[in-house]
């Protein structure tokens, strides 16, 4: 967190430039804002021009600061300010003026904006109420996932999925066997790709007892399993007769095919609206007073 604050502080200082103590001008409006193709082109341009200093996906590099963070971080900069920074550079820093066409700079700014925030900031269009019916009905999502206090226990709770994932990650999870997870702030989560977690496991204990379920955790000595009987198990590897882990999650990745285009669109409209926006940060050290216990 300190690092983020320092980086945020640097950015603000840099942005302020010669008019210290004044808020920087918001800059011109972004002509490409919200255009998916601009995000895509911006990503390519970013990879060519920016990754060397700012790191892949803006997560930080050897020379430049992170443009996003592992947790939700809104640096409070407008697209116009990002445009000005890229076009003019920041005097006294390695960030020099970039020799790019204005349209190219705007596309990079559009991409950086897309890196920040989650699906909740930009929910996808569609009939969310119909999408909810798909979630519990034809899609069978609720068989394994919880939402709104009901549903299955063997897959992650999706109560705040749009507050923790980007729309693109949600689409990928429904359509691709292997994908990266992008969450709040755009950073690559320090977790395994989702298809390599929540694996089905079949265990036969030394006494012949069978446990079937989902593997939640393991090391060289123990396994942590959510059993199909809804109980959590801690199993000693040395005492097990056999442990068979299926290589693939039960999560289907063909929802774009098993649902009609309309149904899929509406399901996404529902999923990208499920979450809670975090409350604005409190000034000072954060958190409520716990009472005067000193």
């Amino acid at each position, binding site marked *: 967190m300190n690092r983020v604050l320092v980086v945020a502080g640097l950015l603000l200082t840099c942005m302020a430039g010669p008019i210290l103590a004044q808020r920087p001008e918001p800059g011109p409006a972004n002509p490409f804002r919200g255009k998916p193709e601009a995000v895509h082109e911006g990503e390519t341009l970013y990879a060519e021009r920016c990754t060397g200093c700012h790191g892949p996906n803006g997560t930080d590099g050897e020379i430049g600061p992170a443009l996003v963070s592992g947790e939700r971080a809104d640096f409070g900069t407008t697209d116009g300010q990002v445009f000005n920074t890229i076009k003019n550079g920041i005097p006294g820093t390695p960030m020099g003026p970039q020799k790019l066409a204005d349209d190219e700079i705007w596309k990079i700014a559009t991409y950086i904006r897309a890196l920040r925030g989650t699906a909740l900031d930009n929910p996808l269009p569609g009939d969310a109420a119909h999408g909810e019916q798909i979630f519990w009905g034809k899609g069978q999502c609720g068989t394994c996932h919880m939402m709104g206090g009901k549903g299955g226990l063997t897959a992650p709770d999706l109560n705040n999925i749009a507050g923790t994932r980007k729309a693109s990650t949600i689409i990928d999870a429904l359509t691709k066997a292997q994908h990266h997870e992008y969450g709040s702030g755009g950073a690559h989560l320090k977790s395994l790709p989702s298809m390599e977690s929540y694996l089905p496991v079949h265990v036969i204990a030394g006494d012949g007892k069978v446990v079937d379920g989902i593997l939640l955790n393991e090391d060289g000595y123990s396994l*942590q399993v959510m059993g199909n009987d809804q109980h*959590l198990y*801690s199993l000693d590897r040395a005492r097990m007769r056999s442990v068979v882990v299926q290589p693939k999650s039960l999560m289907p990745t063909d929802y774009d095919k098993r649902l009609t285009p309309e149904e899929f669109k509406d399901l996404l409209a529902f999923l990208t609206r499920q979450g809670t926006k975090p409350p604005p940060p409190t000034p000072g050290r954060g958190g*409520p007073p716990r009472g*005067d216990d000193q």
Partner: protein
Amino acid sequence: MNFRNAIFAGLLLVGISSLTTAQVPTTDHPNPDPKDWPTYAGTDSGQRHSPLKQVTAANANRLQAKWVYHMDGANGMEQVPVVVNGVMYISQFNRVDAVDARTGSVFWKYKRPPASGTPQRGTAYYNDKVYMVTTDSHLVALDARNGGVRWEAKSEGGYFLAGGAPLIADGKVIVSGNRPDGFVQAFDAETGKYAWTWSAVPKPGEPGYETWGGAKPQGGPMWMTGSYDADLNLLYYGTGQPNPQWTGFERPGDNLYTDCIVALNADTGKLVWYFQNTPHDVHDWDSTETMVLVDAPFKGQTRKLLLQANRNGYYYVLDRSNGQFLLGTPFVSKVDWADGLDSKGRPIVIPGHEPSVRGTETCPSTAGATNWPAPAYSPDTKYFYVTVAEGCGINFITSSTAPDAGTGYIETANAPWQAYVRALDATTGKKIWEYKPVRSNHYGPGLLSTAGGIVFVPEQFGQVTVLDAKSGKPVWHFNTGDLITASPITYSVDGQQFFAIASGTNVFAFGLQEVNP
């Protein structure tokens, strides 16, 4: 989906259908399964005593660390984990990690934005749910099996929840807080439906309002978990100091219901009785210290007792059915602000101890003769074990005429603070033995007693020590390497008794060497 997966999915569906069957509470907090530690104090009684006895004073020297769980992003943890059915729930504000209590490996994690490093004091388990409070004053019920959100509710009426662990009573989740004034609130444990609020300060026209001399009643923060007697259906909570905190001339009177032990009807939240430890407090002697409920003979008659070592330096024995004062005696060597207690338990105040511009020395200090670190009671020894702080403080104000001019307090140079762990005879308050945690000067961690005849004693500077419950002699110790500001627990998995304590940002678990090596 291949054939095998299809079979698996079928099994899943069978399993899930069991969710729809009626669920019975899996935990009975008055007498939980001894292997579990489902609530802040282990049981509703606040005794922090476990019937587990695999570890004794004779074999405690064979204790060893079994695992350590690091909670990344945490600050000095004050939380007391809860353990049910071999799963440990470790918490911070907005976060619960469910950990294999046998190995320390994670089952699941729940996080709610924003990330917070602010310590809170724990969760409560009931009927397959874990209850937590958040920094934005929500109460969240998590499914104990996967961390899914079963329901969440915002505190009612503009009250803001503090970080005390929730308490389960009468099918309700009981939470409390300090803002705008002390309060207790109850929600249905199954649905999250709001039930009632009790306010520590009265409104105009309500009983107690007349004790403020016309001033607006303020304060009474309630930042600690209470205790519960299911037979009497009474909740016991402590309230904190009146406001302004260090000056009293603006609020002449006793300032009810601040610095009180209160008994509330768990169904309605109505006040049944109160006992005020420190009327008209100007030293911030909150009465929030854990209330220990014990059925024991008092002067030849078995009574339902409530025991509390109070921040003001007195150890109290009350009849918890009606609030009757039975006994009050100092449990630290120097209490100079009162010349004892009268027959009703009211302190006979010695004038001249109000905070002043030049500073006024008072013993004990504002930090208290004891504070929130939990005491313990053993029904075997009938001793009340408590961490105490000997020493005095100097309280200051910046003006003798301006309202709310207090600035706080410092430790005195001539009566510096030193922590002790003391065993008191529970019904007389007489000191039986004491143990000195060397270097510990501030109020330290809480305590734990077990049927194995030991007291588990973490120390401020990171040592954990096991004492013989009868003699107070240390029989084992371990350096955790960080400051400890939490209370220990004990539980059992697969025939192994464990002890656990949060130290800094880690939770340590200990057990005997040769069991489940």
